């Protein structure tokens, strides 16, 4: 699997994501700079990493979503290339219009940095095929703006179409219906606040995140 990790000024989880992808796929991802206008040829998967792109100016993810490379990412997503946005990457994908809703300041204003229990709500997606439906897993979170909000009609649609991929088991940041991660309508774009790339090997304190990338690898290679 040929992968790309997008790097914005202020990204800080791009290396973690690149290491996770290399461990799972056996190939070094391409690191693609925000000013680039094209992705390398033959990319099978794109990761938009966590961090504080552009210092969270204006709104988290707002500037990154309008950077030159995001046009290429949007085109690739439209062609069905799987795209994952983690943490700031999730904020970037909502700001870019690839996912519905918005991520607002945590309801209690505090930065949340801890491991959180999650439930896998949809185990049929490109990203979650290695999990059982309803399985309880744990990923770390580290964010200030993870409070997912959308209007009721959008939330009902997400729920009805199986597009809520992960849900917090406890209240974490005020997110509507405890939503932690969502899919786009074609199922090839996933955005989530928790960090699967930080639980890849036992030394991380858990390996629940590894199966996300392994499942993706299996689907892409199939």
């Amino acid at each position: 699997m040929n992968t790309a990790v997008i790097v914005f000024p202020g990204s800080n989880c791009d290396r973690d994501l690149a290491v996770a992808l290399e461990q799972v796929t056996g190939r070094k991802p391409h690191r693609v700079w925000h000013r680039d206008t094209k992705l390398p040829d033959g990319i099978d998967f794109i990761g938009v990493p966590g961090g504080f792109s552009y210092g969270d100016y204006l709104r988290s993810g707002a500037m990154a979503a309008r950077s030159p490379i995001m046009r290429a990412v949007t085109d690739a997503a439209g062609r069905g290339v799987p795209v994952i946005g983690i943490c700031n990457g999730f904020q970037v994908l909502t700001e870019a219009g690839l996912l519905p809703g918005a991520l607002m300041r945590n309801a209690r204003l505090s930065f949340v940095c801890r491991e959180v229990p999650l439930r896998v709500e949809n185990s049929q997606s490109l990203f979650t095929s290695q999990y059982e439906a309803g399985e309880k897993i744990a990923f770390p979170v580290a964010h200030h703006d993870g409070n997912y909000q959308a209007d009721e009609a959008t939330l009902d649609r997400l729920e009805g179409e199986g597009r809520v991929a992960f849900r917090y088991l406890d209240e974490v940041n005020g997110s509507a219906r405890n939503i932690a991660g969502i899919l786009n309508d074609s199922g090839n774009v996933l955005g989530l606040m928790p960090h699967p790339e930080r639980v890849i090997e036992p030394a991380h304190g858990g390996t629940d995140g590894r199966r996300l990338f392994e499942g993706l690898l299996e689907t892409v290679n199939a």
Partner: protein
Amino acid sequence: MKARVFITLKNGVLDPQGKAIHHALEGLGFAGINDVRAGKLIELDLAEGTSDGDIEDMCRKLLANTVIENFRIERLEDA
């Protein structure tokens, strides 16, 4: 030509920042505050002839996130 864009959270959208400001004001002894909502003010210095439509486009494409925010444009007379 100058214009100001006021960006505010839509009604019903929780504003934790506004709530914190509210509590801080009460902590300072100010009474009678019913609610506080925080927003943004963006000042634009624009070429003559920039149309209202152009400014609205800027708001929709970048300055405001219309999922959660409203915007209001105010043109300033040249001083």
